[in-house]
Structures are given as C-alpha cells and as structure tokens.
C-alpha cells in the first residue's frame, strides 16, 4: 500500500507549472520531452516566441495532418507551424541567438543537476557508444536562464538533484531553476533552495529524496 501523502505532478502538470512562470514577450527554446509540452500550456493572453535550433523563431502549434508542411520541423524533428511574425534563418545565426544571450530562457530535460548548477543531460556514462550531444551544451551556456524539467528521482529511485554530477557534464554552473514532479527548486549561491512543494509534501520528505542539502528561502 502506498503510504505517500502526495501525488506527483504529471508530465503535463510540470509543463503547465513551468509555462505559468514564463512572462509575455520572452524568447524561449524548449528541449525534447516534457519541455516541448510547455508550448501548449502558455496562459491565455501571453505571447511567447519559441525558438528552434534548426532556424525557426515563432513556432506555433503542431499542424493537423492535412496541414503538414514537410519542410517545417523543429529541432526534435516534429512537424510544426509558424506563428505570424515568425522567421527562418541558418544554423550559424540560430546559435548566435543561443550563445549570444538573446534567448531569455531554455527549458531542458536532464539526468542530473548539481547544487552548483552543473547539468548532465547528454550522456549516461563516460563510455557511451555513439554519444550524441546536439545543441545541449550551447543552450546550457548561452541562454539568459536555464530551467530544468525532470522527475525528482530516476526510475531506480535515485535522486537527480545531487551534490556533484556523476554523469558527463553538459555545462558547468548553468542551471537557474529546477521543476520536478515534486517541487520547484532554485539553484542559488547557497545551493538548492525550495521555492515550492506539491501538496502533502514536507521538507523532510523532499530532503530524503534529494542528493544534496535543501535550503528554505531566506525570510
């Protein structure tokens, strides 16, 4: 019998929680997985401009099958549409936007985040066969803010918020905020600071599921 006093957020609930924190007018890049879902959860009345590494700004919702343009895909290779006001550009310009600090935010998935903001999200061991990195390293160092969306624990029940990443790093000290199925946690000079927990969760319970010390916000 499950004695837990809480219900973890679903993937869509995590995405909606993130979307609620994105103000009108931000330029945002979304990674694959839960981050991609954020686009559908932007609150009514806000214009958020979504960017894709492969040279798109102003990505709109997924098309109906009949409306697919085979030349219009995002970085996750899904068919998308373009919002009025959207634009196309080449890869060097696209990563100039990323590395040059022009994007307000990227939302990434991760395997691990360390209490100093280190992120590991591209390889699960030093000896990965055929490792693949894509744009993760550029996004992590380049955008003004990096928010991570991930489950609080691995499938095996190991904490993903850790003192030091054991997986290969994507970037050093770059994560600003973490949204998990259990909590919202800021990465600060003090380390992990709990901004929010789901209903029924106590700090002690959350700490037991976390691999580094959790702090409460200063009064």
């Amino acid at each position: 019998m499950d004695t837990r006093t809480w219900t973890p957020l679903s993937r869509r609930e995590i995405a909606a929680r993130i979307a609620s924190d994105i103000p009108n007018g931000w330029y945002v890049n979304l990674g694959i997985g839960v981050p991609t879902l954020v686009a559908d959860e932007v609150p009514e009345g806000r214009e958020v401009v979504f960017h894709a590494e492969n040279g798109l700004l102003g990505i709109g919702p997924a098309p109906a099958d009949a409306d697919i343009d085979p030349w219009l895909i995002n970085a996750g290779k899904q068919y998308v549409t373009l919002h009025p006001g959207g634009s196309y550009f080449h890869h060097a310009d696209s990563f100039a936007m990323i590395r040059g600090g022009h994007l307000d935010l990227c939302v990434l998935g991760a395997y691990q985040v360390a209490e100093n903001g280190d992120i590991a999200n591209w390889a699960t061991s030093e000896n990965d066969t055929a490792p693949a990195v894509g744009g993760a390293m550029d996004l992590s160092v380049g955008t003004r803010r990096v928010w991570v969306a991930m489950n609080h624990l691995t499938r095996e029940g190991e904490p993903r918020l850790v003192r030091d990443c054991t997986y290969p790093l994507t970037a050093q000290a770059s994560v600003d905020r973490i949204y998990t199925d259990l909590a919202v946690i800021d990465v600060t000079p003090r380390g992990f600071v709990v901004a929010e927990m789901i209903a029924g969760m106590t700090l002690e319970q959350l700490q037991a599921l976390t691999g580094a010390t959790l702090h409460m916000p200063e009064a």
Partner: protein
Amino acid sequence: MIDKTVETVAGALSGVADGATFLLGGFGAVGQATHLIEGILETGIKDLTVVANNAGYGQVGLARLLKEGRIRKLICSYPRIVGSTVFEELYRAGRIELELVPQGTLAERMRAAGAGVPAFYTPTGVGTRLAAGKEVRHFNGRDCVLEEALSGDVALIEAWKADRWGNLTYRAAGRNFNPVCAMAARMTIAQTQHLEPLGALDPETIVTPGIFVDRVVHIEYGSPRL
C-alpha cells in the same frame, strides 16, 4: 501581446545614459538612423562612445553630435565626413579619442559580440600599426591577430519595413552594418520607413528577426541624401 513599437523618438530613447556606448548602423548617408541619432541631442546625454563606420555625413546626425561635444570616443574605420571638418578639428585638438579599426574587423567584432564569441583571430592588420600591441598567433602558415568582441549599450539602426515583434527588412545598400549592430547591443532601437501588421513580412525574407530588436519607431524618413 508583444508590441515593440513606440510613438516618438523621445520614447524610443528613454533610459539612455551618460557614458553609454552606441552602435550606429549606416554606411555614408545610406541606412543611417538620422532621426534617432539627432534624438540623442535632445536627451542631453554626453561622454558617449560611438561605434560607426564613418564619422557621419554633412551637418546632420553624428556630425551634429560631434559638433556639440557629446562624444568622448569614436570607434571607426573611416572617420571622414563629406561636407564637414568637425571630426578633424576635434581630433587635432585632442578633444576626441579615435580607435581606428579595419572595416571588416569592425563588422566581425560586432558580429562576434552578438554571437557570444568573446574573441577571434584574423589575418587582417598583421604587421601594420593597427595591430600594434595585439597578440599574434600562427594558424595554417599564417600570422593572425587576436581581436575581441565589440558590444554596445544601445544600437540605433534604420530599417525599411518592421512589425510589432521587431522583425526587420532593409532596402538595398541600406542593410550594411544595421543587422550587425542589432545583434551586438543590449538594447536595439530601429527607425523604420514602413510599419507592417504582424505576419505581413515573409518569414523567408526577414533579415533581422525581432529577437535582436527592442524598440521600433515608425518614421517616414524619406530618402538618404548623398
């Protein structure tokens, strides 16, 4: 809703401050945001650093800012003004600092700033007095100098068409430094001849996507004078 348009030049320039670094688009008279540059005069700010290919033209824009003593330093490839000797006079009198930069290096340093590249090597200038004191390094059998990114607080640029998201197109040789300045400043302000509804600009033909633009002011500025 995103609306980067502002009604007036004064509104477009609100918040600019003494000591700021301005990046000015334009090549000669073409593509220079003269109304915005003259708007700086009205704000009263001074001690400015200006990055521009030329030192202005005629008696307008940058030439007026120079004449009124607002500019502390000019970073420039070709500090000549057709129809004015104001820059030469200030320079001879030691009343303005000049950093002379080869034109391609000037463009590339701003592009680097916009692209998050803090420094790069280039063969331009090696063995000349413009490379004096700069680090030299050998690549593929060739000496190159290290050049650092050049960013600005404010870019003042001129567009042909714009929309409320700040997407821009240019006209012919009016493009020049404008898209490069737009990338390299913390705040980019564009004066545009035409303001179009969102979606009217073809996404294939937008030259400066709105991500690089903060404010747009619609001014029917007419034709450049040579």
